[in-house]
């Protein structure tokens, strides 16, 4: 029987971090900092008035958990209204605050879920992300089990989430004790041009005081370990997945990104995809 869980707003103590938000906007220095500082308090007030965070999970079997989290639909409506009123600085700041809150929620929810699962002797093996691992059709099917808990939300046929300030992903579970991060990993996200990608890495490096070279090397090592252990076939250790030159590597990267469970062309990788998505 499917198990469902709802985590309402009071489970998430979200605290806006001005320095983080300004770093993401790259307005932490220069002439525009004063303009954004003027709008910080109004942005916080609007955020408090409109944000309605909620997270829901559905566990269909012992192998997988589907998770959806959102900060609600009202804040992004307010962002659009601000842009219509030509209050671009406040709108832009509120938009970025929404994203920071969403990432904070993701982090807190990961901790909550880990505690809930450990109590049932279950552990997280891997986090599967939209478009990278999960096709739009799979996302829609996964979301179907959550719809009744979040009737205001939806997933379009092209895999777009509504409200936009949301995340939907699948956690692969295991009975073997593991220490795996359940956080959204920017390095494995297909939004290569995301505003926050480099900034989050920079702020992470700043917080953990890791030299840049060391952080990049640790990311590469993690990728190698995942590919060797989970796939079991010889693969290139680094490849630019955005190159589309119809080469064998390029087609392999396309398959890896789309993860079609009905395509058995890639041996052990295809078997793994079929296991995880069907």
């Amino acid at each position, binding site marked *: 029987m499917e198990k469902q869980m709802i985590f309402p707003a009071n489970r998430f103590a979200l605290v806006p971090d001005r320095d983080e938000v300004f770093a993401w*906007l*790259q*307005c932490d220095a*220069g*002439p*525009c900092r*004063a*303009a*954004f500082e003027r709008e910080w308090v109004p942005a916080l007030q609007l955020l408090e008035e409109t944000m309605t965070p909620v997270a829901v999970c559905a566990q269909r079997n012992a192998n997988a958990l589907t998770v959806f989290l959102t900060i609600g639909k009202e804040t*992004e409506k307010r*962002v*659009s209204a601000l*842009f*219509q009123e*030509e*209050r*671009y*600085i406040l*709108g*832009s700041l509120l*938009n970025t605050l929404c994203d920071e809150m969403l990432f904070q929620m993701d982090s807190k929810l990961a901790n909550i879920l880990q505690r809930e699962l450990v109590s049932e002797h279950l552990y997280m093996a891997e986090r599967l992300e939209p*478009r990278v691992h999960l096709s*739009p059709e799979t996302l829609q099917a996964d979301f179907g089990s959550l719809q009744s808990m979040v009737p205001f939300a939806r997933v*379009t*046929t*092209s*895999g*777009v989430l*509504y409200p*936009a300030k949301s995340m939907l992903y699948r956690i692969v579970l295991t009975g073997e004790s593991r220490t795996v991060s359940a956080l959204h990993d920017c390095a494995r996200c297909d939004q290569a*041009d995301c*505003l926050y990608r480099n900034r989050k890495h920079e702020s992470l490096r700043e917080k953990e005081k890791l030299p840049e070279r060391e952080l990049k090397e640790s990311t590469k090592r993690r990728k190698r370990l995942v590919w060797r252990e989970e796939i079991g076939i010889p693969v290139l250790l680094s490849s630019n997945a955005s190159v*589309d030159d119809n080469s064998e590597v390029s087609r392999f990267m396309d398959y890896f990104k789309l993860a079609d469970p009905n395509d058995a062309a890639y041996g052990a990788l295809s078997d793994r995809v079929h296991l995880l998505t069907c």
Partner: protein
Amino acid sequence: MNWMRTEMERPGQREQFQDALLRGDRPAVEEMIRQELADYPYWRDELLGELTEQYLEGAVPFSQLTVLAEAAAALAEHLPPVAVCGSLEGNPGDTGRNFIQMLFRAWGVPTLDLGADVPADHFLDAVSGQGIRFVIAAAFSADDAGAAMLLHQKAMERGIRDQFDLLICGAKLTEETGKKLQLACMDHRAAAVARWVVQTWKNR
């Protein structure tokens, strides 16, 4: 607004005006333009053009463009729209479209916003009814190619495809798809799309 020159330009006035734009000081800009000097739109274009180029080269952040846009919008006049903007059908998102609207307003390009999840016919009705020259479709991912293709095909069926330039902003479609759509411009950055429209429109 009547941009007739009513008094001689004072020394440093351009610098003061551009400084107010860079600080996002809209009240100061509004106070200055009450003097109705003919040069304000040109000074705005000069600064906005320079900052856009620097942003596209990665030299300044988008937040600086945002600050400038808020102040520059004070100069925008109420003219009939020449561009229409909307998120393609199936895409309920607003973020990309918000930034396109912001930049067009800053540049003074009169634009009609159709909102999110816009069927192809709504775009085309705007072209037929209002003489729109630029259709900017905000896309989220390569999966939006289908909706973009539908827009192009319906325009061909209606016989109006040659009446407008089609631009895609927000997602990278393949080059092959871009050619099939006869795209005038395709870029994930709103500033690049805005620059193309501005240069084309202002050189008319």
